[in-house]
């Protein structure tokens, strides 16, 4: 039996089911990161002193990573736009670029983390580093998750384009919504942790 409303629009919501599903999931993600941001506020305001992020963390590397993630959001939306224009080859290029930019983000993060460990800075060192590693670690897991889904649509999942291009386009749009959300979270994490 076919999955209903993958392409067709439901009369009650005005959307396909995938779209409403991903937005409900993102709503739960807002609450997940919201809880951690609330914890950050509580820990910071309750601490007798709090270090400026740029005295401990590497701002140039984080700025580079911000630009990498913003670029990946553009390539992601361009991948979707390519499908809307029925240009599958262009979709593959943009989606491939999105995955590579995600990988670049992880490589930069690897250098940041490994440098911290080398100089003896761990999550257990102080509250600042505890919340830094928790927030950026969770965010990094989201980058990995998004990359896995995007890689599936770049590779084996792309077979759907031949049989049901509209459904495939919708799926790419939904994975794009998740990817942009990951970018959105980083846009707030960057100044909060590195610059303030």
């Amino acid at each position, binding site marked *: 039996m076919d999955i209903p409303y993958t392409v067709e629009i439901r009369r009650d919501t005005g959307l396909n089911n995938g779209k409403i599903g991903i937005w409900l999931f993102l709503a739960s993600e807002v609450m997940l990161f919201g809880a951690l941001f609330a914890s950050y506020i509580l820990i910071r305001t309750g601490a007798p002193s709090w270090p400026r992020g740029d005295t401990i963390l590497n701002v140039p590397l984080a700025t580079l990573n911000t630009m990498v993630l913003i670029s990946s959001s*553009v390539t992601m939306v361009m991948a979707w*736009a390519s499908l809307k224009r029925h240009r599958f080859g262009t979709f593959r290029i943009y989606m491939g670029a999105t995955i590579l930019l995600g990988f670049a983000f992880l490589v930069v993060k690897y250098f940041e983390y490994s440098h911290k460990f080398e100089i003896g800075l761990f999550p257990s060192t102080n509250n600042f580093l505890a919340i830094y590693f928790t927030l950026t670690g969770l965010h990094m897991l989201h980058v990995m998750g998004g990359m896995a889904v995007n890689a599936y649509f770049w590779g084996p999942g792309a077979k759907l384009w031949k049989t049901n291009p509209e459904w495939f386009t919708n799926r790419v749009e939904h994975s794009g919504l998740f990817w942009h959300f990951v970018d959105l979270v980083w846009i707030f994490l960057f100044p909060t942790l590195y610059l303030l």
Partner: protein
Amino acid sequence: MQASTTTDHAADIDKHVRVYILVFVTLMVLTVVTVAISRLHLPVATAVTIALVVAGIKGSLVAGYFMHLISEKKVIYAVLLVTVAFFVALLALPVLTVHDGFWIR
């Protein structure tokens, strides 16, 4: 059943693409602005306010244009409205506790 939105006209998509590139450039500029402002070493309250305002503008651009929230259906806005209400409550709870809020002891 209605046709899906994937039947959008190619010209509309071309227009969208131009907007995406404009948003991309704006986001890059705002990233540089965020870092430049942090170098000014302003008082904490001012720095937090400015940083969050700039991040809010950047976030709105991503949500509005890349996530197409600027032209979404009402049901999505309803979901987000509830989410924002709970998110604000979540952030307000520790702040009220710290400031010895009159209704949270």
